[in-house]
């Protein structure tokens, strides 16, 4: 991630109508947004659409951006909301992502797999690859938090800002995501007893 002050300077230039400054902001965050959207939607075309729409919204509402906050979390938040909207529109959507409805004991629902497994082309450990497949079966709110925490290396506080939830909720969701993943791996026969092999 880039320095916050750099981003703010670009935002201010963008507000003055400097489109090259805006393009630089796009360049900085397009990949982060794409990866976030891809993690949630698992679809290249939709992920690209989300990136484009997110930046359109950013441009349109640049003057409402609170400059005392971080641009990175703001732009990730816009993209996250777009992903959730898209996910809601999908008919395979079975589990409410309503935070209030979450509970410790509920099982994650298996969702339809989308597209090929891109992890296969990357030389990661077999556990990481299995996990990648498992994250596709998590409800999107957990996928998002996994992406933000582990791929984009955001602090809990930043995740809270992106998702617009209290810090405690971020931690609770991350714990539930871990637990779901651990259970899914155990069920698939790749639990801890197989990990050391």
């Amino acid at each position, binding site marked *: 991630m880039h320095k916050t002050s750099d981003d703010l300077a670009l935002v201010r230039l963008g507000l003055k109508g400097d489109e090259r400054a805006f393009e630089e902001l796009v360049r900085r965050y397009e990949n982060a947004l794409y990866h976030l959207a891809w993690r949630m939607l698992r679809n290249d075309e939709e992920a690209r659409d989300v990136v484009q729409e997110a930046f359109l919204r950013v441009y349109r509402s640049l003057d409402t951006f609170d400059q005392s906050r971080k641009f990175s979390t703001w732009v990730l938040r816009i993209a996250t909301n777009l992903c959730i909207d898209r996910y809601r529109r999908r008919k395979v959507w079975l589990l409410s992502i309503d935070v209030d409805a979450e509970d410790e004991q509920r099982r994650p629902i298996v969702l339809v797999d989308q597209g090929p497994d891109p992890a296969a082309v990357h030389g990661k450990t077999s556990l*990481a690859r299995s996990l990648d497949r498992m994250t596709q079966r998590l409800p999107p709110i957990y996928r998002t938090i996994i992406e933000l925490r582990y791929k984009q290396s955001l602090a809990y506080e930043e995740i809270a800002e992106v998702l617009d939830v209290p810090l405690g909720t971020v931690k609770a969701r991350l714990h539930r995501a871990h637990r779901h*993943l651990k259970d899914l791996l155990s069920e698939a026969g790749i639990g801890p007893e197989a990990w050391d092999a």
Partner: protein
Amino acid sequence: MACPQRQRALQEYLSGDLPPVAARELEAHLESCADCARDLAAYRRLMAALSELPDAPPVPGLHRDVMAALRPQLVKWRHRRETRTQLVMRRGLSAVLAGAFALSLSVALWGWMGRIGSVATARFSRDLVGLWKSAQELWQLVRLFGDVLRTLEPAALGLWEALRSSAAPLVPWGPLILASYAAVAVLGGWLCWRAFHALKEGDLSHAS
């Protein structure tokens, strides 16, 4: 999983979020509970593996595609984002142009009217009819110029976008814009100067 109520504590223990007292209590429990010890190991491995999650597939041409989709919208929204200075410059530009053309046209009209009648008629026409006509012409021209600029602007902006995206790093756009404004100002000045001279010549021809 023998102790579902300890799942969260196990994770907090790993991330260092568990208060010391609770951590010591958990450590004591781990001594006697094989299930929890196994879950702790599982979480530890899980968190390490999550840091190694594969990346999304590479996205060739993402920047190009995103910008191609954004540019038409940026052009559309530019006017809304126009600063006061830009607005004044754009409006001022059309006012100067319209004024210059109107002035030269009305001066030409004046001269023409002076030639067809006697000096007295010409002076009378100049004072009343000419003045009225000039005012009308000026108003028409100001409106016409507004319309022309409004029609040409999107096309010009489109061309501008195409130029900018293809040659953006090579061309000093700022100085070029200023130069084009300066050129228009010089043209306007020249027109005014010509008009002034036409007026003087017209007066001389009446006097003779």
